[in-house]
């Protein structure tokens, strides 16, 4: 199963988005979905160490992991955390260029069906084109 890790500047946002994605996909399957965020003092920011801890926790349980960063430092910190892993573990991770909430929901549903990492990453990316309101 492919796991999904939300990385946000806010721990509340990361956990909340993970919760929504879990809620949307739980009926289909049980893809591991986690959220990390905030600096190491609990304020807004991103900590490479927190991302590394979450990855270490998820790696043994997942065939692959899709990271969904909110923006800016979350992308850099995710890249930094993946860069600290062995090549073998790093090869199991993709950082998605996707809207974080919509991407997480679509990816969670896809992952819960047992889809592989490239498929889950692709669907998250396509969330950019998701129309929310039809005019």
């Amino acid at each position, binding site marked *: 199963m492919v796991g999904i890790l939300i990385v946000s500047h806010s721990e509340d946002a990361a956990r909340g988005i993970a919760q929504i994605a879990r809620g949307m996909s739980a009926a289909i399957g049980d893809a591991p979905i986690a959220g990390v965020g905030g*600096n*190491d*003092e609990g*304020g*807004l*920011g*991103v*900590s*490479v*160490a*927190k991302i590394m801890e979450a990855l270490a926790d998820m790696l043994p349980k997942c065939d692959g992991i899709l990271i969904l960063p909110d923006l*800016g*430092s979350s992308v*850099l*910190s995710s*890249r*930094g955390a993946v*860069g600290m892993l062995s090549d073998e573990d790093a090869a199991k991770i993709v950082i998605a260029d996707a809207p974080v909430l919509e991407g997480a929901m679509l990816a969670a549903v896809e992952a819960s069906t047992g889809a592989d990492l490239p498929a889950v990453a692709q669907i998250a990316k396509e969330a950019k084109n998701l129309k929310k309101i039809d005019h």
Partner: protein
Amino acid sequence: MAFTLEMALLALKKFNAAVEEKKDYLTDLDSAIGDADHGINMNRGMKKAMEKISGKEYGDFGGLFKDVAMTIMSAVGGSAGPLYGTFFMKMGQKLAGKTEASTENMADAMQEGLGGITSLGKSQAGDKTMVDALQPAIDALRAGAPDGEPAAWKAAVDAAQKGMEDTIPMLAKRGRSSYLGERSIGHQDPGATSIFYLVSAFRDAGTGQ
């Protein structure tokens, strides 16, 4: 005279003191074009890095810079965390096993660190980032190496300062400031500014200033 492990410790101490002293200035620069956190973040990260390394014995540059890198990556909170963290990590890997480095060794290690920054941030010269102060400093250090440490480090600091000032008319291409487009022009880049302090700290420690 070579750059020693003791000098590296002293340089980190001086860099920590500089970001502490210039915390508000860095944050002011960042509030013009970024998210107003560079001074606070660098101050928090370096302070924690100093706590981590103080009182510990290090056998080589690799161990020292790795501890600094890991602490900064966790504690800074903004993009400067992974960027400075990777810089120190790569520098440490290049100097692993050494307790003394020639000026050429230092230039090589800093170039390795800069490679880490550009691969992480996908940044190039002229994007209005740390790179614009760091690359000229490394080039000047390497070119000045045959003239001896004091001249080489002076050239590196001068080049970092010029590189930092040259970011003022640039249009930001990376990070939060890039969202401002044309409005980023006319402001000095905070990351290039903290790099100037870092190169100055290396110079001061390496030449007994």
